[in-house]
């Protein structure tokens, strides 16, 4: 993308698309299920507040939700894959994330307090991992999702080692 900041060097693992797709599908399921529940409730009630044409066609609600949301389920993982990138250069972690809204994070290794490598259930199946980098402030902390497990392990190891060497207690 054009802008004052260049792209971070590395993409996340391609399998992250599958991870985000699964997550999007779960969210989609909850949303449509919730809409169906609301539709069921509206259809069964004869409240004066709910107009007649709506309670007669309540089944339209989950369908409409599904039709509107389905493209996002497909688009979000691909879009995220295009946006999510990371880099460790000059003892600074530079990571980009998001899709509709974006976030760039710069965390100098000298200010890192903890480095976590975490694997959720799906991540485990997909051999992915998430690296969480924490500093003394939530605004200076970064989470890199969807890394290949080997890459994540190496990155976490490297960060922990360098953070130990560069520890700066000014904060």
């Amino acid at each position, binding site marked *: 993308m054009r802008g004052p900041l260049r792209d971070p060097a590395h993409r996340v693992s391609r399998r992250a698309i599958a991870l985000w797709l699964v997550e999007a599908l779960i969210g989609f399921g909850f949303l449509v299920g919730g809409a169906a529940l609301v539709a069921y409730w509206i259809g069964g009630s004869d409240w004066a507040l709910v107009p007649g044409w709506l309670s007669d066609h309540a089944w339209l609600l989950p369908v409409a939700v599904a039709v509107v949301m389905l493209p996002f389920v497909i688009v979000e993982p691909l879009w995220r894959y295009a946006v999510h990138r990371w880099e460790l250069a000059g003892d600074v972690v530079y990571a980009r994330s998001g899709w509709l*809204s974006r976030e760039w*994070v710069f965390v100098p290794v000298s200010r890192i307090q903890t480095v976590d490598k975490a694997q959720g259930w799906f991540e485990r199946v997909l051999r992915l991992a998430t690296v969480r980098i924490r500093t003394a*402030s939530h605004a*200076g902390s970064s989470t890199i999702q969807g890394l290949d497990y080997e890459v994540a392990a190496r990155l976490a190891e490297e960060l922990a080692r360098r953070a130990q060497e560069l520890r700066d207690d000014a904060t």
Partner: protein
Amino acid sequence: MTGPGSPPSRPGTAQPGRQPYGQGAARLSPLVLLIDPIRMLPSLFLPLMGVLVAGGFSPTSFGWAAFGVAGSVLYAVIRWVTFTYSVTADRVELTRAFVGRSVRTIPLERIRGVDITTPPLHRLLGLAVLKIDTGAGGGDAEGELDGLTMGEAERLRAVLLSRGPAALPHPQGSLARDHAGSDMPSNIGSNAGSGAGPGVPAFPAGTTAAHVPIPAAHVPEQVHARVPRSWLRYGPLSGAYLLTPFALAAGAVGLVFQWGDELGLTERNVRRAVEWVWAHPVLPVAVVVVLVLAMPLAGGIAYAIFNWDFSLRSRDGYLIAERGLVTRRAVSLELRRIRGYELVDGLIERWVGVVRLWAVVTGLGDSQTRGQLLPVTPRKFAAAVASEVIGPLSAPLRPHPPRARRRRLFRAVAPWLVTAAVALALGWAVVTLAALALAAVGIPLGLDRYRSLGHAYDGTRLSVRSGSLRRAQAVVERRAIVGWTVRQTLFQRSSGVLTVVAGVGAGSGGYLAIDTGEAQGVEFAAEVTPDWIRPFLSKPPS
């Protein structure tokens, strides 16, 4: 349970080989025993009355009541006897051996601050409450010594605070006078001579070997600010305490319900009262009007009580902010941990030209009350005090691009316009008019929000400002920054702006420069910490 006759220093309280600091294990002042029963009175009152009423005020019932009083006094005595505290070379230990035995240990280097408060009863008896702040997020990890003599509290504070890492030499007080304008009272930077007499601790030899001992007698206490009483008039402008009348009224209603049975308040009476009020609707309206009219007055009084004779002093590398009329409260903040400050003013305060001042401190629990450096004071005075105590910001704020103004306006006006349109479609005239009025108010509000936006960097400190109804300008040292986050929502992207968040391991954690231009925002971060950002710019800066 320890009997009343046991010696104050029991084996095991202080670890063998550890030199007790000052005296060994000590107790609170016995005078606190006079306070405890009085404090228990409200909770004892109802049961006692119950016993007396149930017994028909017979001699036996008085006997039982006396037994209850004696029991609670005995309880207070036992609690006093079984609570001891000791300060050793590297820790404070609070030992409670009432039923079980609990020892709370607070390592001295973890102490971030010491607060001394003197509630009215304590003050009558010359006592104080000393709270030890460890920055652990409040609650159990903190220590409280309720009922020290004033002299002992001052001595303990000096001992506890001077044991932290060596104090930094703090900026001298001459700066403020250079800044002082014609309307500046001459009470900044005046020297109070060498501290209060009892506050100067006597250091036992040998206990401070590992640390640099602070020669307390040679570091005179410095007074940075004394807020004159005439400035208490600015208090109601802050909007704080304005709800006091309502809080008092709610408290009274709560009391009526709590003690309702005693006051003959039955359901029937309540219903009758409600019906009576319903028949006279003028009354509740009048009450509300009176309460609203009382708001500035009561708010001003509450503000004056809490901020009476506010003073800001520094000693031994600590800032001490003291205030209060009924309850005096002295909060100490370690200067070494202060990373900056925040100037906050509301809309009305800005018209009058007054601000409030907070310190940005790393690892400070309850920073809202503890971090306050000045109550509502004229802007020039607060700025002078801030630059004297913490450091000046010598760069003007840079404005954000006009696209940011469009966004502020849109956000302040559009929701109300939408509300008005929906209300119009549904035929709710009143709501439509109200929403339109709010949309109209949104125009100056949005413009003002835009005017507030700004960021600056002067080589040592950066500053960001935002907000309108509550405008806050943060000034933070560069070295406090632990990272940057740059955010851009879909809408910001279409306007070509972004939000830059400076992550700081102090205060609220992140300070936002909202809606900077794309290049401007990234340049700002790159200017403050070039090493962290420059390598990632898309083209080398010309």
